[in-house]
């Protein structure tokens, strides 16, 4: 392997520490998902075996808890994705539009959970699930005069990503009362396409990201057995066909670093990851490293970003890398709770 195709852990650590501190103004469109960025950085540093050096651990946790919302009236409990709506006045209080976001809640839950209001989260999770089984990201619940709760329809989009978030949250808080598992399973199976990949919603195109979300959700819900042997066989074929050198997300699309994780982890859950060509996969992912500033990107010679840095490291970790911790491939992070 050429010299520049060696993992550069030091550079990536530096990059992720920089992300944890401050990111430039052109990242403004990440303003509502800063918690997700923190998750990428922290989990990335953990993969790089550097968590103990994170000197500000307690402060990071305190910042994350400042995003917690406990609101049993509007049933919007969980974690916000950012502090955009936080003010001194509404600190630790409910306020209009101060709602949790399901991805925020998922990425917040990584300490010992001692300050997490799990019951409130489960109660709020329940209302995010629509009658067809899929989950919304965020919405306010209106209580009708007769006492019935009615989710406001215009709240947010709904798709496979949020089923995965709901499954992760329930798994982590060890409380599944917020999820109707049968309905979620039904929705997932309906999203299996003629190509035998899963789409974001029924009848849409099969996609590597949604296939990971679908399979990981089934695994977390204990429902992998809902797939027939034939389906499983064809899904494995579709997933393996995504490898070109690195992995692509759909047929005839370019490869992209993040699919080394999404597709790789789905294969791992199905217990067939060893069919992957490790050398070619490694070579591709490593070629997307920024050898000057650190971080990884989706393609060779493009700007690195926190998502692809974390996904690239995760993808490498699936192949058991000496410099990297082994990833907890269902929850998309290794189990951090034991460390705090």
């Amino acid at each position, binding site marked *: 392997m050429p010299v520049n195709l060696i993992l550069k852990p030091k550079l990536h650590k530096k990059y992720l520490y920089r992300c944890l501190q401050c990111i430039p103004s052109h990242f403004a469109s990440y303003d509502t998902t800063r918690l997700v960025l923190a998750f990428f950085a922290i989990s990335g540093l953990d993969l790089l075996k550097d968590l103990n050096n994170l000197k500000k651990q307690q402060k990071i946790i305190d910042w994350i808890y400042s995003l917690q919302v406990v609101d049993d009236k509007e049933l919007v409990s969980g974690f916000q994705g950012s502090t955009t709506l936080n003010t001194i006045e509404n600190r630790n209080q409910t306020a209009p539009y101060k709602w949790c976001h399901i991805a925020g809640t998922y990425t917040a839950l990584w300490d010992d959970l001692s300050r997490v209001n799990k019951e409130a989260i489960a109660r709020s999770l329940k209302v995010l699930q629509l009658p067809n089984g899929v989950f919304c990201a965020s919405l306010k619940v209106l209580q009708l005069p007769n006492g019935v709760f009615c989710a406001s329809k215009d709240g947010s989009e709904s798709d496979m990503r949020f089923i995965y978030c709901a499954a992760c949250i329930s798994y982590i808080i060890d409380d599944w009362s917020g999820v109707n598992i049968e309905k979620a399973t039904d929705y997932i199976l309906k999203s299996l396409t003629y190509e035998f990949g899963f789409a974001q919603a029924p009848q849409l195109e099969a996609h590597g990201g949604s296939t990971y979300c679908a399979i990981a959700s089934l695994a977390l819900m204990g429902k992998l057995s809902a797939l027939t042997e034939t389906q499983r066989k064809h899904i494995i074929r579709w997933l393996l066909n995504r490898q070109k050198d690195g992995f692509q997300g759909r*047929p005839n699309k370019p490869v992209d670093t993040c699919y080394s994780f999404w597709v790789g982890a789905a294969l791992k859950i199905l217990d067939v990851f060893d069919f992957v060509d490790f050398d070619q996969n490694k070579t591709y992912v490593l070629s997307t490293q920024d050898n000057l500033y650190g971080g990884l990107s989706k393609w060779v010679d493009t700007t690195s970003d926190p998502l692809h840095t974390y996904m690239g490291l995760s993808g490498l970790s699936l192949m058991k890398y000496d410099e990297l911790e082994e990833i907890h491939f269902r929850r998309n992070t290794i189990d951090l709770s034991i460390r705090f």
Partner: protein
Amino acid sequence: MSDSSDEEISQQKWVFYKDRPDWKDVEPIPQDDGEEPVVTIAYSKEFTDVYDYFRGILKTQEKSERALQLTKDAANLNPANYTVWQYRRDIIKALKKDLREELEYIRQTIRKHSKNYQVWHHRKVLVEWLNDGSEELEFTKSILETDDKNYHAWQHRQWAMKTFKLYEGELDYVDSLLQTDIRNNSAWNQRYFVVNNTTGFTDVVLSNEIDYTLNKINIAKENESAWNYLRGLLLHDKEGLSKNQKVVKFCEDLYNSGNRSAFLLALLVDMCDEEITQGSGDVLLARQKGIDLCKELASNYDTIRCKYWEYMANTLEKKGTGTDEACTSSTAN
């Protein structure tokens, strides 16, 4: 990630909200990011100014024309802020604004940020409120012209088609996309979507679709999308994968002509596999043929998946010889 629109704003001789006389009565509220924030964004001055006032009106729940304009500036600075869009919709409802005007605004916004979830969701809600999907096909088509695999555009298009029954002419559109790019997997998926929701895969439709697909495979034999579609079609053949004479003959001819597309070989393997499972025809011959194909794939034509094809060869070898579990138990019965 979308580009920040700071530059655009400054070009329009931007006046800070704090310097606007008509906003004097509103109290700007700073963001509380705690004592030790992480992943801090170096907000531009415009960003801080707009969002201070956004927090201000959110507190008083002001729903007015100026508040509506403010949400536009806030969305412009960060189109991914779902609260801004939610509040904008709440204002639109309260002021009974012209939804057509809003539809035009979101059309322009989606053109600038066509991979952003929130702007597409906003459009969907507006179309639901209007209960009119007549512009959606034309609109999504215009987005697909710049990116014909844009997942959001396809999702919105399918939703509109299902909601407002807009299937007419779609197969022609799909065909035109495939003529432009025969490898456009999104278009192939859309083809399946249309047939599935209109005629269904009746015997006649199935036969026509198979002809169409074989024709496309002839043009590009390494095109996974067409091969996947063919497999999808065969799911509707009651006889299974290996009994459709047209497809079987096509595959055999292609193989005999010397073509070694990995997708062709893989389909032939699956046909052999099915014959062995069903116990139809010459099982021993099918097994040997399947194993040979797997070996060809592993060593020459799909080497990146060689471990998989070796495994498949082993699986076929055990199949029907009484060494695999299923056969052991059926023998025992």
